[in-house]
């Protein structure tokens, strides 16, 4: 088999299905991870003692736990106590825990960087605390979090390859299969690295476009 046929007949179809799986993992994780991250951050800043403490525990635990270990627990460990996830669901859960924990840190930092006067002025107009947080504080805090959140998104693209360790055949898994089968490690892994690089590059440009779009004039 020559190089061209290998690339066209083996690599491209394998990468295509692997890439779709990687994108699915990322597409499901990212929005949920962001929403939970916002919730955890708000809980830490605005919650009472109990809630704030609980949310801090969440952030500490899921930032501290090695992701691969987390995936093993979710996929191999939990069935022994009767909780069974498909490989895809276990992966997404692990990623969401990790992604949201890190996002919550970025967002919390942005929230406390917003001057207190913004909240005071909103309250003085008769907004409830929740209205003030949702309409005044979060729109500003999230803008400031865009660099951190997109950084986290880039990590997510790359660590989504860990799903392979619990049998999800995503991009890295797919490449590993054909590399072994055709004994073509160098070309396959190099090619797959380029695909990741392309994804990350697109994300980087997307993030800076987003930052520009939401920049506050003046």
């Amino acid at each position: 088999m020559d190089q061209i046929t290998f690339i066209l007949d083996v690599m491209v179809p394998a990468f295509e299905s692997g890439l779709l799986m990687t994108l699915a993992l990322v597409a499901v994780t990212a929005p949920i991870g962001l929403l939970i991250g916002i919730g955890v951050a708000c809980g830490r800043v605005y919650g009472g003692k109990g809630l704030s403490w609980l949310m801090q525990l969440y952030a500490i635990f899921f930032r501290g736990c090695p992701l691969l270990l987390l995936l093993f627990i979710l996929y191999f460990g939990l069935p022994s106590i009767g909780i069974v996830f498909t490989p895809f669901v276990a992966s997404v859960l692990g990623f969401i825990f990790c992604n949201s924990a890190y996002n919550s840190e970025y967002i919390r930092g942005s929230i406390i960087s917003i001057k207190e006067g913004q909240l005071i002025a909103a309250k003085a107009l008769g907004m409830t605390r929740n209205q003030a947080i949702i309409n005044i504080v979060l729109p500003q805090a999230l803008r400031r979090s865009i660099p951190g959140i997109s950084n986290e998104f880039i990590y997510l693209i790359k660590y989504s390859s860990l799903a392979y360790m619990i049998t999800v055949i995503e991009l890295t898994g797919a490449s590993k299969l054909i590399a072994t089968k055709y004994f073509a490690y160098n070309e396959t892994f190099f090619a797959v690295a380029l695909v990741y690089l392309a994804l990350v590059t697109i994300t980087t440009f997307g993030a800076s476009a987003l930052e520009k779009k939401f920049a506050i004039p003046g």
Partner: protein
Amino acid sequence: MTEEKYILRVENIKKAFGTNQVLQGVSVNVRKGETVCFIGPSGTGKSTLLRCINQLTIPDSGKIFLNDEEVTHAGPRINYFRQKIGMVFQNFFLFDHLTAVRNVEIALLKVKKLPPKEAREKALYELRQVGMADWADHYPAELSGGQAQRVSIARALAMDPEIMLFDEPTSALDPELTREVLEVMKKLALQGMTMLVVTHEMGFACSVANKICFMEHGHIKEEGSPAELLNNPEFERCKAFIGEFREYSQ
């Protein structure tokens, strides 16, 4: 209880921050359409008093009534009272991520739940009132201090408040910009708005206020009409304080 009809009654308000007794029992009554100015040295509790009136700071004791309805201990109904009590801050506190017109309309949309079209019309009307209609689509960072303060006045007025609280509205502004803001406030007073103004602008206080309260150490030490207070202050500290301002303004 009261024979005269007051729009705002502040009764024996006390407030301490830790061991710092900032307000030591302040009472003041305001009639509809009156302008009451508060003057006095720094740290005597003028801002704290205004913040107690709309409960941004919760007083330790004492009562506040707006139109004979109790504002203190209002629970969630405080958000109703805050719409009736407009507030303008020294540092404007405009919402940084919103244009001038969005600053004015956001509470109309979210608090008063006006339909978008109506909210926009009302917001533009209020901006016109303060001479800022041409700046409707500019962000706070693109405005001068005087312009920003006028937008923040429009934002408060849009809620149709019954009284307005001003906490040193011109202290962050240079004389030129101070003048444009004071003009707006003067117009407002002439239109019959009830106003409580913490200020160091003695010129404004003398020409607009119905009553001036001199505050010191958490008390109102002296109060009266501008003529009573400025021409003949019996209270020594007040005299000295006003004297200092006279010197500055000369």
